[in-house]
């Protein structure tokens, strides 16, 4: 296994598609130019055809070269990748530094049974490693090699080692799966339109142009429709309202489609210490997370979720974005729209000691409301009222009062959602506005803490404390200064005295 080897020749297809997408993405800016010089382009069909053929053959050549220079080698404890045509890169990645192993099968690989092995690292984007186009079985085998190496080298005591060996005989155990109905619910309660948009992005402008063209050809003139004479006001209102409802329905429909594309056939399984998520309609995504890599659990509910009692349960690992990498929904472990019981079961399965759902959350100081209402909302609205009074438009003043009351009640809702607490192992934070999100992370996984205090807070002996984990940073605002320091010093004591690894 430790000889330099090329990937399957099908890899050129991967490079070709990738380069083509890159060009198409960048060519979006050219569309207006092409559009305006349409006639001229049509005048020289041969040249255009030759140009397109030239670009395509150049792409093919580049793709072939990229394939030709792409080599990898697997050693006992590391993987090396040579890549690049002009700018060569040599990557040497020890297995222990690999955070996450993903198998990605794009549409164009699937008929051939190939997949791309993506290796996430804790470092920056530079260290990212992909082995494109390996046969499915080989990829599974490589993944198993890496994971088993990690397992045997991170088990610290012999007892743990033996335990993991006996455990590895276990089969994958199914923890959760999502039905089509769940995905429809997920699409409705969560805006997943962007998944759909991401697929369409390269063609977005053409689509918009076409829609306008179609509208015009059907004789629909938006200006005439809305602002033309002879329409009474109620008709106009009806138009606007029905347009908004229509737009909303379309967005929701797209969101449902997006949700199904992303999560079709969702399965969360457990094998030994690894949690494995598989999903996807067009391309299958597989995310593997070692339990020890888990940094943060988020129990997330939008306002619609609160109404229909569904939860998005997120298991956060190292934050890819803050490490300069492409993250996105698909590299994350999230169980979409689970029921309350399923949620409790999953949390219990992953972190049995966590009291995320049962602990009493302490409120933050009421001055939180005074700050937003007193310092921002009231002065702003007084200013607007003053402006209207000055211009003698008294009829508008009640409207301003309503807006002020509405915004103040939102601040109240936000304050009411804020909550925090801790126990021996975990810190808990609750926040939200209309929805509610619960965060829970082990105190031992804290990377850094911060204490913040403005002049105003100092006067009232209040402070904000921030806990930074590898997944994200969480702040508890407006708590008593002594309590804040107590939280910080106790957390630090725990991290520094127990000296546990965070990965």
């Amino acid at each position, binding site marked *: 296994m430790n000889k330099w080897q090329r990937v399957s020749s099908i890899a050129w297809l991967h490079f070709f598609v990738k380069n083509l997408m890159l060009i198409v993405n960048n060519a979006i800016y050219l569309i207006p130019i092409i559009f305006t010089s349409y006639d001229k382009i049509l005048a020289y069909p041969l040249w255009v055809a030759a140009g397109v053929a030239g670009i395509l053959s150049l792409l093919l050549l580049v793709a072939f070269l990229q394939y030709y220079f792409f080599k990898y080698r697997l050693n006992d404890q590391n993987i090396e990748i040579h890549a690049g045509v002009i700018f060569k890169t040599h990557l040497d990645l020890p297995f222990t530094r690999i955070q996450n192993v993903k198998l990605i099968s794009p549409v164009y690989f699937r008929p051939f049974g190939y997949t791309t092995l993506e290796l996430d690292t*804790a470092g920056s984007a530079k260290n990212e490693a992909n082995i494109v186009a390996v046969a499915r079985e080989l990829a599974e085998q490589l993944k198993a090699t890496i994971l088993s190496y990690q397992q045997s080298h*991170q*088990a*610290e005591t012999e007892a*743990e080692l033996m335990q993991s060996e006996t455990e590895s005989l276990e089969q994958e155990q199914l923890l959760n799966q999502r039905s089509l109905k769940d995905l429809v619910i997920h699409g409705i309660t969560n805006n997943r339109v962007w998944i759909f948009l991401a697929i369409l992005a390269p063609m977005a402008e053409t689509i918009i142009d076409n829609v306008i063209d179609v509208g015009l050809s059907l004789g629909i003139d938006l200006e005439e429709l809305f602002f033309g004479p002879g329409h009474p006001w109620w008709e106009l209102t009806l138009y606007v309202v029905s347009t908004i409802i229509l737009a909303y329905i379309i967005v929701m429909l797209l969101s449902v489609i997006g949700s199904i594309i992303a999560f079709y056939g969702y399965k969360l399984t457990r094998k030994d*210490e690894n949690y494995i998520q598989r999903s996807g309609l067009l391309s299958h995504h597989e995310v593997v997370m070692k*339990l*020890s890599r888990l940094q943060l659990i988020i129990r997330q509910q939008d306002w619609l979720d609160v109404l229909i009692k569904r939860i998005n349960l997120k298991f956060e690992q*190292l*934050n890819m974005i*803050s*490490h*300069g990498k492409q993250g996105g929904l698909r590299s994350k472990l999230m169980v979409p729209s689970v029921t309350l019981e399923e949620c409790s079961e999953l949390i219990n399965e992953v*972190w*049995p*000691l966590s009291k995320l759902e049962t602990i009493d959350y302490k409120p933050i100081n009421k001055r939180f409301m005074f700050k937003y209402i007193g310092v921002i909302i009231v002065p702003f609205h007084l200013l607007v009222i003053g402006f209207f009074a000055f211009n003698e438009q008294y009829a508008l003043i009640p409207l301003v009062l309503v807006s002020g009351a509405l915004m103040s009640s939102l601040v109240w809702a936000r304050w009411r959602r804020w909550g925090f607490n801790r126990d*021996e*192992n975990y810190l808990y934070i609750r926040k939200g506005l209309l929805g509610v999100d619960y965060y829970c992370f*082990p105190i*031992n996984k*804290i*990377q*850094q*803490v*911060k*204490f*913040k*205090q*403005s*002049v105003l807070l*100092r006067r009232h002996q209040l402070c904000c404390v921030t806990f*930074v*984990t*590898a997944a994200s*940073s969480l702040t508890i605002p407006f708590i008593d200064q002594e309590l804040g*320091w*107590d939280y*910080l*010093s*106790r957390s*630090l*004591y725990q*991290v*520094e005295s*127990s*000296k*546990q*690894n*965070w990965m």
Partner: protein
Amino acid sequence: MTTPLFSNQVIDSAQLAQYQHQQVTPLQPTHIKANVVLRLISTGIVLLLLAVARWQTISPFSAEAQENLSIALMVVAALALMLNIYGYFADKAKGYVLRESDISFYTGVFFKKVVIQPLLRLQHIELKRGPIERKLDLATIQVFSAGGALHTFELPGLYHQDALALRQFILAHKDVSAHE
């Protein structure tokens, strides 16, 4: 590693590290002085450019433009004054504390902020020196944690020797080496 089984002793918070009452080491006076001079020079250059534009006679602006320039000059001068005063006090307020198992960085005049980084959780540490710092024998230390780029912090205004010693201390720290 599995979720740890916990020892759960009672801890008296009065015995824990008192981060709020630490003796903070301020930045080197040389660094603060250099910053004052640099700020004066850079704001001075901006003011000078504006003043030259206002009173130059090579191709004079219209009277209206000259008036606008005068106003701009006054606004910029006021801002420059504030920047210089604030910058001085902001530098004065900065400081750090190195303890056995963590390093704290203090900043802020109006918004006090303390960042505390356990040495155990350090990913790596970098020494940075610009041309002026090299001239003045100063150095800046950059501290990286796995919290990501947003939570990287810098300790400026250390003597080069001190910075080297600090880095050596941190790298040689048993927690950091144990972590690797």
